[in-house]
C-alpha cells in the first residue's frame, strides 16, 4: 500500500496500513471518493480555498436585532435557571428557619451520602446496559430494513409505535404486564412453572425489568436514526467493495461502521443522556423500590426537592449530576470516535 494513497482502512494519523480482514490493495482504487467524504482517513484532507485578507466585515445591525430575542430566551430559560440552581446549591432550606448561605456544605454532605452513590451506580448501570442493547438492536433492525421490500412502510411504522407512546403510559402498560397477581408475564410463568413470579418486588429483577421497558420504548429511536444515516451513505464505495469481493461483514465493519460514525455518536449520545435522566418509568413502575434497587439519581433529586423540601441539597445533587453528564457525554463521544478510527 502506498503511503500517499488514502484507504478506507487507514487508522488514526501515525498508524498507516491496512486493517486486518481485507487483503492489501483490493480496495485502494475505489477509496479515493471515500477519503474525500470522510476527510480523516486520508493523509491530505481537502483544504479550504485560501481567502485573501480583506477588510473586517461588520455584522449588520439587523442580524443582531433578529438574533437578540433568541439569545434573550436562551438566557432566561437556560442560563438563568442554571445559575439559580448553582446559587441554590450553596444554601440551606430548612423549614421554620431563614434561608441561609452555607457554602459547600451541601456538596460535602452529598459526597458522604451513601444513598447518592448507590443511586448513581444504579443510574450508570441502567444507562450503559440500556444504551448498548438499544444500539445493537437498532443497528440490526436498520441493516435488516434498509432494503426496499414489500410491507416495508408498514413494518417501519409498527416499529415506531413504542416511541410515540407517552413514557408514563408505557410505565402503566408494563406495570400491568409485570403485575404479580394479574400480569401476563406472571400468568405465563405460572403456566410453565406452576408458580407466579413477582418481577417488580424482586430486587434482582426489578432493574432489568425497567431496562427492558426502556429498550422496548427507545430501540425504535436508535433504529430510526441509524436507518436514516445508512440510507444517506454514498453508494459508490459499497459498489466498489462489492466488485472487489468484500463480504457483508467486511463491508459493514470497514465501510458502514466508519462512515456512519458521526450518526452513531449522535444517536448514542442522545440516548445515553436521555437514559441517564430516566424518571417516568421508574416513578410509575417501582418508585425506586424494591428497597433501593431501582432508585435512580433523578428520582432521588425529585424526592429530595419536592417531597423532602431540601431544595439546596437537591440543587447540589442536580449540579453534580450535570457535571457528570458533561463528562459522560465527552467520554462517550471521544470513546466512540476513537474506536471507529481504529477500525
Amino acid at each position, binding site marked *: 500500500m502506498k503511503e500517499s494513497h488514502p484507504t478506507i482502512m487507514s487508522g488514526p494519523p501515525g498508524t498507516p496500513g491496512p486493517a486486518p480482514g481485507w487483503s492489501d490493495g483490493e480496495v485502494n482504487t475505489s477509496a479515493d471518493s471515500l477519503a474525500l467524504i470522510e476527510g480523516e482517513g486520508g493523509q491530505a484532507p481537502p483544504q479550504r480555498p485560501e481567502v485573501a485578507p480583506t477588510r473586517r466585515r461588520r455584522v449588520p445591525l*439587523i442580524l443582531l*436585532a433578529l438574533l437578540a430575542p433568541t439569545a434573550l430566551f436562551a438566557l432566561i430559560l437556560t442560563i438563568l435557571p442554571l445559575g439559580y440552581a448553582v446559587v441554590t446549591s450553596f444554601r440551606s432550606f*430548612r*423549614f*421554620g*428557619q431563614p434561608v441561609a448561605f452555607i457554602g459547600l456544605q451541601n456538596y460535602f454532605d452529598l459526597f458522604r451520602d451513601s444513598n447518592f452513590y448507590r443511586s448513581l451506580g444504579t443510574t450508570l448501570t441502567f444507562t450503559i446496559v440500556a444504551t448498548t442493547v438499544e444500539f445493537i438492536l437498532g443497528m440490526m433492525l436498520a441493516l435488516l430494513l434498509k432494503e426496499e421490500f414489500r410491507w416495508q412502510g408498514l413494518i417501519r411504522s409498527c416499529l415506531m409505535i413504542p416511541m410515540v407512546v407517552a413514557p408514563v403510559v408505557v410505565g402503566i402498560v408494563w406495570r400491568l404486564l409485570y*403485575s*404479580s*397477581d394479574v400480569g401476563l408475564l*406472571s400468568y405465563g410463568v405460572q403456566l410453565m412453572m406452576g*408458580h*407466579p413470579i*413477582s418481577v*417488580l*418486588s*424482586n*430486587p434482582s429483577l426489578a432493574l432489568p425489568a425497567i431496562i427492558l421497558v426502556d429498550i422496548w420504548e427507545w430501540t425504535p429511536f436508535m433504529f430510526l436514526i441509524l436507518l436514516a444515516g445508512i440510507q444517506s451513505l454514498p453508494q459508490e464505495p459499497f459498489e466498489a467493495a462489492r466488485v472487489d469481493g468484500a463480504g457483508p461483514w467486511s463491508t459493514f465493519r470497514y465501510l458502514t461502521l466508519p462512515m456512519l460514525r458521526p450518526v452513531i455518536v449522535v444517536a448514542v449520545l442522545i440516548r445515553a443522556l436521555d437514559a441517564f435522566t430516566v424518571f417516568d418509568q421508574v416513578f410509575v413502575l*417501582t*418508585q*425506586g*423500590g*424494591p*428497597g*433501593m434497587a431501582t432508585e435512580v439519581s433523578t428520582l432521588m433529586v425529585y*424526592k429530595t426537592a*419536592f*417531597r*423532602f*423540601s*431540601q431544595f439546596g441539597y437537591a440543587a447540589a445533587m442536580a449540579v453534580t449530576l450535570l457535571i457528570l453528564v458533561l463528562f459522560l457525554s465527552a467520554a462517550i463521544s471521544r470513546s466512540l470516535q476513537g474506536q471507529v478510527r481504529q477500525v
Partner: protein
Amino acid sequence: MTRKRIRSNRRTFLRDSLSVLGSTALVQFVPGCGRTTSTTGRGKITFGSYADPAQNVLKEVFLPEFEKKTGIETEWVEADFSSWFQKAVNDGQTQAGAFDIYVLDDLWMPRFAGAGYLANLEELGFHPDTDFVESALDLGYWPPKTGPRQPGIDPKARPTLFGLPLIGDVQLLFYRNDVYASGPPATWDDVLRMARERSDPTKRQYGWVTRGVKGNPVVNSYFVLLHAFGGQMFEGDWKVAFNSPAAIEALEFYLRLLDYAPPGVAEFDSDQEGQTMLQGNAFAATMWTGWCGQVDDPNKSKVAGRISFSVPPKKVKQVAKLGLFMTGIAASAPNKQGALEFFNWFHSSAVQTQFARAGGTPCKVSAFKDEDSCRKSRWLPETLKALSIGLASPRTADWYKIEDILGTALNQTLIEKGNAKRRLDAAASEATAFLKNAGYSAG
C-alpha cells in the same frame, strides 16, 4: 381586479415584524394581568386539588349548588397527587395567587401552614363550631395542638386554625361478612387465625391483603399495627421509636399475616389492594374510606354486599389511621372573602348532612349520625368511630423524609420476609442522624 403592488424593504419588514410581535405579546399579556372576571359580579373562587374520586360529589353537586346560592363562580383545577403538590408549593412560594382554595393531604398541613402559604382562618373570621369531628379539625391547626413541635417553632405559640377538613378519610377494616360470619374480628389475632384457617392460594383466596410498595403506602399499612401493638413513631422530643420492642413485634406480626397474602404484595399500592378485595380474593384489609362506595356496586365488585366495615382490630390498643383531605385558603388568594363564604357554607351542619346523604364523607358529627345518610352509606357509623380514635402522621414538615427511610426498610423486610429488627434498627439510625442534622433533639 387590480393587485396592489407591495414593496418590501428592510425598514417595512422590521416595522411590520415589530408590530406583529407587539400585538402578539399584548394578546398574551392582557388576559394574564388578571383572572377572568366573573360574569355574575360576585367574583370567582378557584380550587386547586389532586384528582380523587372521593371529591366527585363535591365537584358535581355541591359546587354548582354553591354557585346557585351565592352567585360566586367556582373553578376546579386538578392534577395528579404529586403534580398538584408541586403546583401548590410553587403557588405558595411565589405567592402567585393562582388559587383561592388549596385541597391538601393532611400530611401537607405542617408545610403549608408553617411556611405561610395559608391564610389564618381565625383572622378571616371563621370560627369552628363544636359539631366538627374533633380529631379531624385538629389537623387544621398549626402549630399542632398536641405532640412535640419541630425546631424553629415557638413552643409557646398558640395553635391557630389554617385549614379545615374536606373529606373525612380514615382507614377502616374491610372484611368479608360471609367469612367473618359472627361479626368483625375483635383482635389482630382473630385476623391471623381466620387467615390461617380459610386461606387457599390454589383458589386465589387469601386471608389478608396489604399495600407493600415502598414509601407512604407501606408505612400507612404498618402504622395501624404499630400503634395497635403499643408502639409509636416518636417518643418525647422526637426520639425515634419505630424500632422499639413493640414496633418489632408489630412488624413480625405483619410478616406472619403476609404468609396469607397474595404473592407480590411488596409491589401492591392502594389500587391493587382494593381490587383484590373487590375481586373477592381476600377476606380482610385496612383500606381508606374512599373505597367504601364501590363495594356494593355490582359493576365494580364481585362480592357486592359481602364486604363490611369496622374500626381496625386491637392488640393492646385500638387505633385508626387518619388520612383527611384538608382545605385551606391560600395566603395569596385573590378572593379570600369568596373562599371564606364557601367554607362557611360547606361546613355548616346542614350542608354537611346533605353532603353525607349524597354519598360524601363529611366532617361533622351530626352528618355522620343522620339516619338517611347512614342508610345510604352504611360505613358512616364505623367511619365516625374510626375518626374518633384516629391518629395522624407525626406533625412535622420533615415527616416525608422519615416516611421514606422507614418505608424503604419496611418494603425490604416484606421482600426478605424477615430481618425485622435489623431493618428497623438501621432505619432508626438513619432517621435519627437526619433529624439531628436538621436540628431536632431526637435524643
